[in-house]
């Protein structure tokens, strides 16, 4: 039975917040109190479906769900809720989701107050003309400081005391008031039910059997099963095989009407043809204009991914291809390394994104990978006037032909309690950051703006920020263009042989110190070998640091008689198995973690 909901009874909203402020938990309570999910099927952060999301306790992908809500006016409303990720690497997911909504619940952990992604996401919502419903969460916790957090939220959104709701997503207290506010404060969708059908693809998923599943928000008109449609930007025609809504699992229906959120499956297998941001329209009665799409997301961080076993290259290619179907932000191109063989240079939105992709490749595709040190994309301008893109230190041209090198900068905003202003200034100085300005959010909290090289953030800026402010600071950043820097390539040699996969690009002024710190770290990371192995750092031909990995003195079990042979053999076989996580570089065995050693340099090593 198809019940058509009038526009006036539809509310589309996202839940947005800084990471861990409780978005997914609030979604749980909403699903529970509206009876969308039966109590027995309830589990924590139900909308975090991926194993990785559940294990790490974070949302990676936005998730939509339709809810029937009986409001205080006695009427039943169709609410379309989209839970979004909070981590800065996935901001693009948030901005897409917002384009499908009229309202946003801006959640703030009242024990933490407004943080960097609270600000970033609030601005995204404002830019999208959404009604913001500010909510303070975790009021059940003793550390909750509602007045302080309220002040900050007021500063950020202009909301009054009456407009700011308080809730505990854990106990469920205050959830009903949020639902009520969604109905009364969020405007209903504005589309034209009679106009030619248009739907925005705000996300997509690839299913091995069914092809591309487009997550859509219907803007005008409606769609039905078997309808012939076309994709406006790619000019691809298709027939709707199935459509429906999320409940939260996919529930097929006969129609999707104006204002509704749901999914459309056309049987198109080629993801390139069903792009996120594209508009689906009726084939026979097409809309005149496509909806404004999304900015294409650009990867910011690059790293080499290599299979530990050389013959797994093709498998890795297949896996990356499949993963990309569900992860538009991932990019990859083949790369070869003298040390590591054939692999791919992959582009990511940030380190968390990188980590997640790596883990999915290992887990879902059974691959064992070596990740090389992440770096940003440099632009090397040659004396000939040409420009070379450098995504891998090994691609850096010879010093003699380089005129100048440019690196990407970001505009960063750091939110901290005022007592840490000095700490932040000190940290930023060591990271080649230029101070822009500073703004008070409340007497206790400031928002500091900086321009700094993205490369610094990729290293450990964020960790340092957290450590030095005891977790009180939060960071948001946005790409802001390329700038010239004085950079050099630092090479690492093992047993006298340069290892291309360990090279890195670094500011000249810090090259020596970083070289020293890196060889020390490598010496610690590389286990004793059967012979002494010198570890050196060099700039050009000049060795700037050297350490030695000592030789093992004794490694043999004392006893091996008739009764011990099996046990002994199995022990050696197991050790051999353990070596899979080692890479043989010439005569040296290097554990995979060593390739990421630069990320672990002691804070002091990188600061000077």
């Amino acid at each position, binding site marked *: 039975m198809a019940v058509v909901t009038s526009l006036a009874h539809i509310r589309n909203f996202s839940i947005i917040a800084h990471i861990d402020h409780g978005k997914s938990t609030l979604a749980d309570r909403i699903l529970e109190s509206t009876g969308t999910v039966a109590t027995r099927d309830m589990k924590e952060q139900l909308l975090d479906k991926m194993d990785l999301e559940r294990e790490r306790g974070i949302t990676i992908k936005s998730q939509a769900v339709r809810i029937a809500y009986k409001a205080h006016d006695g009427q039943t409303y169709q609410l379309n809720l989209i839970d979004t990720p909070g981590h800065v690497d996935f901001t693009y997911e948030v901005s897409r989701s917002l384009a499908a909504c009229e309202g946003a619940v801006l959640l703030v952990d009242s024990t933490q107050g407004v943080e960097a992604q609270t600000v970033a996401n609030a601005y995204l919502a404002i830019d999208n003309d959404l009604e913001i419903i500010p909510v303070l969460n975790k009021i059940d916790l003793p550390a909750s400081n509602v007045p302080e957090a309220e002040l900050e939220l007021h500063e950020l959104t202009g909301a009054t005391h009456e407009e700011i709701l308080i809730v505990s997503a854990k106990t469920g207290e205050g959830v009903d008031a949020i639902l009520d506010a969604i109905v009364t404060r969020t405007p209903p969708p504005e589309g034209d039910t009679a106009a030619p059908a248009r739907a925005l693809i705000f996300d997509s998923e690839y299913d091995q059997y069914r092809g591309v599943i487009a997550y859509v928000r219907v803007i005008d008109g409606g769609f039905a099963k078997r309808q012939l449609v076309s994709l406006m930007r790619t000019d691809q025609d298709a027939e709707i095989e199935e459509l429906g809504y999320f409940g939260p699992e996919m529930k097929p229906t006969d129609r999707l009407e104006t204002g509704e959120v749901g999914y459309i499956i056309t049987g198109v297998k080629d993801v390139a043809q069903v792009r996120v941001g594209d508009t689906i329209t009726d084939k026979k009665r097409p809309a005149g204009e496509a909806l404004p799409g999304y900015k294409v997301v650009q990867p910011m961080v690059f790293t080499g991914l290599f299979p530990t076993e050389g013959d797994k290259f093709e498998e890795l290619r297949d896996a990356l291809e499949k993963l990309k179907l569900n992860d538009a932000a991932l990019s990859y191109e083949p790369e070869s390394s003298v040390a590591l063989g054939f692999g791919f240079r992959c582009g990511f939105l940030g380190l968390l994104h990188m980590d997640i992709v790596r883990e999915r490749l290992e887990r879902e595709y059974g691959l064992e990978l070596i990740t090389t040190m992440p770096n940003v994309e440099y632009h090397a301008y040659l004396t000939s006037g040409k420009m070379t893109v450098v995504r891998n230190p090994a691609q850096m041209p010879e010093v003699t032909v380089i005129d100048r090198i440019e690196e990407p900068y970001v505009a960063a905003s750091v939110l901290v309690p005022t007592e840490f202003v000095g700490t932040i200034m000190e940290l930023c100085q060591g990271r080649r950051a230029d101070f822009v300005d500073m703004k008070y959010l409340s007497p206790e909290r400031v928002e500091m703006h900086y321009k700094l090289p993205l490369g610094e953030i990729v290293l450990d800026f964020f960790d340092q920020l957290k450590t030095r402010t005891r977790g009180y600071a939060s960071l948001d950043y946005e790409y802001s263009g390329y700038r010239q820097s004085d950079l050099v390539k630092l090479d690492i040699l093992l047993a006298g042989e340069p290892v291309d996969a360990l090279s890195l690009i670094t500011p000249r002024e810090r090259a020596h110190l970083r070289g020293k710190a890196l060889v020390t770290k490598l010496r610690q990371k590389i286990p004793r070998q059967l012979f002494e192995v010198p570890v050196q750092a060099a700039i050009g031909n000049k060795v700037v640091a050297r350490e030695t990995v000592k030789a093992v003195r*004794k*490694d043999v079990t004392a006893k091996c008689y008739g*009764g011990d*042979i099996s046990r*002994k053999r199995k022990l*050696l076989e197991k050790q*051999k*198995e353990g070596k899979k996580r080692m890479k043989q570089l*010439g005569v040296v065995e290097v554990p995979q973690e060593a390739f990421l050693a630069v990320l672990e340099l002691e804070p002091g090593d990188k600061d000077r």
Partner: protein
Amino acid sequence: MTGRPFDGPVRHLYVHVPFCRMRCDYCDFVSRALDVSGGRAGAEAARLLDAYVDGVAAEWERERAAHDVRRLRTLYLGGGTPSLLRPERLERLLELFRPYLTPHAEVTVETNPEDADDEYASWAAGALVSPATGAPRGVRVSLGAQSFSPALRSVLGRTAQADPAEAFRRLRAAGVGNAGLDLIHGIPGQDADLLAADIAAVLKLRPDHVSWYELDVVEGTALATRLAASRGAARLAGGVGRVTALDSTAALDPAAMPADPADDVRATGYRRIVGELSHAGYDWYEVSNFALPGRRARHNVAYWRARPYLGLGPGAVSTVGARRWTNAADPVVWAAALSAGEAPPRTPETLDPETRARERFLLAARCGERVPLAEVAAVVDQDVAGSLAAAGLVSLHSGTIRVTRKGRHVADEVCVRLFRSPHLRG
């Protein structure tokens, strides 16, 4: 070597004697404590021992029928504590095998110092007879000394405190011609001086053979538990893992027991043992074994050359061709099956050709024996062999590979590197 590892007729026999007076704290051998002091408990022990000897007889009959067993070149009575059987029962055991020994068979009896009294010594010196001259020929005795320092022995929980040096002299005096010593190094508290004292004591006695093992603290043993507890106590007291030097005559206070000597200390001690024994004319012919010329333990050499062998007794392991099996460890279960005319419960293992090749190589590696590359080509990576040869850890010579003396110190890692990745699943 002819044929594949462990192929061919059986000429080597091991008999496991799974009884001891008391369990030592570091022991993880198949053995149970037996009260042989006399009285009611003694009578019970006697019944168990008699059942054991009968079981060995029955198992020997079965095994001889089941396999191609030729005249035995070596027979080894190991334990446990075989000397606990005393000459009377040892005679009964030997009687079973005498008809099947080659004229020059090596017969070894592991012996604990407290058993090596005059009666025992004279039995050992004359237990066999030279077929040519009819003159008495002794068995080979392997004396479990462990350390000449009573303090270190008590760290090991070796409560029987008979002086190993005296025991050894008694054996020699009675005319035991082939006598070896078993020792342990790396004992908690065994500093450089204490180790030097043990080395000096060994060289003074000049045994024909020396087995000198590094202490392996096996999880679950009393020693492991005690060490863990004392480490905890030391940590609480603020003195973490300090190795204390001690007077060799003083008893060790277990509460003040230091942690394991650091690996480097053990490595240094081991190199010192190898150096001094080699200097004194002993051939370092296996990782932990040293022999005067002509005195290698032929029985053990057979293992290390991957010859087929049979093992009798509870917990004993046999390997013949592609089959390896381990007897049930419980002497009662084992004996009951045999007395009922059945084979004792066994855990079998099948050795595929690659496994046998790997074992062949790892055993040879410990002895520095040459192996034709053709025999191990399937399991040894020749490229790695080349790089290890360049580092002096193996030597490649006219189609053979050998782990050098330098490589023997790190033989495990050498094997792990050389082995191709096995397909181990399943």
